[in-house]
């Protein structure tokens, strides 16, 4: 090997060696969380704070001092102790917390959610609204004194569905049917159903939606649920649970009382996916009204259809009533 190559190689080797030896303490101390104070020839332990926020890009103040980086960020080589961390972003409520930095450890303020400061409200619809309902397919239905209207979520493409305006004064609840083709609403004693796709089945010139009272309860209504298929509703009143079959004609509608309460229920919950109705009731013969149990009623597939078929076949009054 030529001597010049030998010299060049020696230079390269010793340069690499020096780089390795010089970088080793720096890289290791950085990774381990040690800080070298070159002036005092002292090594001390540090910790670090990691901050991330949603939305990202927020400013971070540590002990009141603004840090250069925006979230997600990390502040390194912090001496162990307590630090006041503030996360700020314009248009959002600030976040702050006292954080303990321990030696060689990471203190995380991870996934902080910054809540926006309320912006100026925007008017979606100007008409006199009695009530409204928003469907899962992104439509707003307005129950107004001028009729029933429909629009997009931002109020655009407003369309009148019906001129009906006899809305009850105190609507307790509203529920879209599973197939999104009907909307029920109810007050203390009455249940109404809006058929949202009525226009498809009516002759031309008819209104797109059809609204009708489907059930009047003698007792106070607690809740009303849809049964899968959009053809039956369950009306839970203080005295019983009734199933109401929905047909075009309001008369001659099948109604079955499937359970009679010993005392008015305190809570009702219907799991649509499993088809199970949960409710509380007093044990039969119990003296105290407080002595309640939780019951469940499994409304398996075709439960109501079978029930109604039996009803028509027997044509008796065994707990079922006809209107």
């Amino acid at each position, binding site marked *: *090997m*030529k001597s010049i*190559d030998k010299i*060049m*190689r020696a230079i*390269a*080797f010793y*340069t*690499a*060696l020096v*780089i*390795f030896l010089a*970088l*080793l303490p720096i*890289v*290791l101390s*950085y*990774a*381990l*969380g040690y800080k070298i104070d070159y002036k005092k020839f002292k090594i001390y332990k*540090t*910790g*670090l704070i*990691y901050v991330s926020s949603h939305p990202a890009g927020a400013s971070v103040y540590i002990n009141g001092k603004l840090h250069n980086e925006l979230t997600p960020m990390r502040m390194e080589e912090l001496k162990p102790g307590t630090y006041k961390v503030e996360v700020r972003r314009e248009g959002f409520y600030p976040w702050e917390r006292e954080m303990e930095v321990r030696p*060689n*450890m*990471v203190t*995380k303020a991870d996934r902080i959610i910054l809540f926006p400061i309320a912006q100026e409200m925007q008017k979606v619809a100007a008409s006199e609204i009695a009530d409204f309902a928003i469907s899962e397919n992104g439509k707003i239905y307005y129950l107004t004194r001028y009729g029933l209207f429909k629009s997009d979520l931002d109020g655009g493409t407003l369309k009148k569905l019906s001129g009906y305006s006899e809305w009850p004064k105190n609507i307790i609840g509203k529920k879209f049917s599973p197939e999104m083709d009907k909307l029920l609403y109810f007050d203390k004693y009455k249940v109404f159903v809006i058929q949202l796709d009525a226009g498809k089945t009516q002759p031309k010139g008819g209104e797109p939606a059809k609204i009708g009272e489907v059930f009047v309860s003698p007792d106070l209504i607690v809740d009303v649920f849809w049964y899968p298929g959009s053809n039956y509703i369950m009306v839970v009143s203080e005295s019983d649970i009734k199933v109401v079959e929905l047909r075009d004609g309001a008369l001659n509608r099948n109604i079955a009382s499937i359970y009679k309460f010993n005392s008015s229920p305190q809570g009702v919950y219907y799991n649509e996916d499993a088809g199970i109705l949960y409710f509380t009731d007093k044990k039969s013969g119990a003296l105290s009204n407080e002595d309640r149990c939780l019951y469940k009623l499994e409304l398996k597939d075709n439960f109501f259809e079978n029930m109604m078929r039996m009803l028509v076949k027997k044509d008796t009054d065994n707990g079922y009533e006809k209107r």
Partner: protein
Amino acid sequence: MKRDRFYRRLFEIVPGALTWGTIIGLFVFAFIRPVWVAIFVIVFDLFWVTRMLYLTTLLVFAYRRLAREKGINWIKRCEELKPADGLRYAHIYQAVLFPVYKEGMEVLKASLDALIHSNYPKDKMIVVLSVEERAGAEPWENAIHLSDLYKNKFFHFIVTRHPDNLPGEIKVKGANATWGAKMLRDFVDSRKIEHNHVVISCFDADTCAEREYFGCLAWHYITNPDRNRSSYQPIPVYNNNIWHARSIARILELASSFMQMIETMRVEKFVTFSSHSMSFKTLVDVGYWPVDMISDDSAIYWKCFLHFNGHYTVIPMYVTVSMDVATEKAIIPTIVKQYKQKRRWAWGVENFPYVMMGFRKANKIPLLQKIRRAFNILECHYTWAVWAVIVTFIAPLPLLFGGGLFRQTTIGYNLPSVSAALFRVSMSTLFIFIFITVKLLPPRPPDVKPQKRIIMILQWFFSPLVAVVLGSTPAIDAQTRLMLGKYMKFQVTSKHRHVPK
């Protein structure tokens, strides 16, 4: 004898035990002491980056030297030389020995044509084709045919058949080369040519020497006062079929060329590799190539090193010999072929027990030199086997198995970012590799599309992936086999040349 066997097994076990000890140790410690493993990984990564930078610098030096010496007319230089130790250029015979197995006619023809195109006087060249008997009739018939074609173009053309199952031999290339060399000796002695005047080059069947190769070899041989205590190593490039090879194979072979170029700058560690040359006198004195070792190319160096009590060196020559990239048409067979070839190279670890056993008896070699050389062999094979495993598989283990507490520590938090930063620094060396690749590429054959040049550049960005698959595993495989005493058999890398339409 029993003691010798014990020591041999011990030295066979050491490299594999070190490798497996490291891998298993790091794996276990990743569970019980993740911080220690994380520190080790960072130190290793930093060591690897600085090593990469250092080696790449040496590669640049070697490339500059290669480029500088490319234009030299070595024959002219030889002619201008004054006699050294009574030796003159006119005395030198170049013997080229090709141990042949089943390599096709087109492969051998290209290698012989390269000799014809050499500017060395053909009346001073002897060619030996030593064909393995067990390869069957066809290679032998090919050799006879080639002899008919070329015998009048050289001083002499020897075709010989290496018998199978000679006593003391195993099925290795070194046995065939030794047979061929013995036939050459018979011829040289019959013509009363001094062994000292013959330089022998042992070439793989696909080796095409460049035009100036033999002139350069003769110059180095004459001017080297220790000519008989030296081997002469060209730079192997894999240009024969590089344009038609699969990317994965190209990357690996180019990396091996680069490694050889780097090694030329580290003469004290330099060992013969693949096609190489040496004094015929030396070859005869040391008793030819080992006939029972797979890695005959490096083993002959160590045989000479032990024979001359450590006074043996390898002289780098900045001329190239071109060979075939081990490739296939489909990707999976290419990977398998490359894997087997790299495992055979990694089997060079068999030199460790061979050298250590030699060192036990070689009292004249200074202890420090023994330690340094043994360490060189061990370090080379150890880092080959563990580096890719550490960088890719061990590095994430502390985070995976270190538990929540480790992840809350600063080192647990910093480990991925520090490793990634060091990896990015090491990737910067790729630009040098790309530059040298482009410079070393042979002209594009007419049947290859021009856009393949772009692939030749982009292929390097897949090198980390290739390193994971074929970086460490062949070396671990070879070391494990040696450790368990399951000795490898020589597997010839088949050579099929692409014939343009």
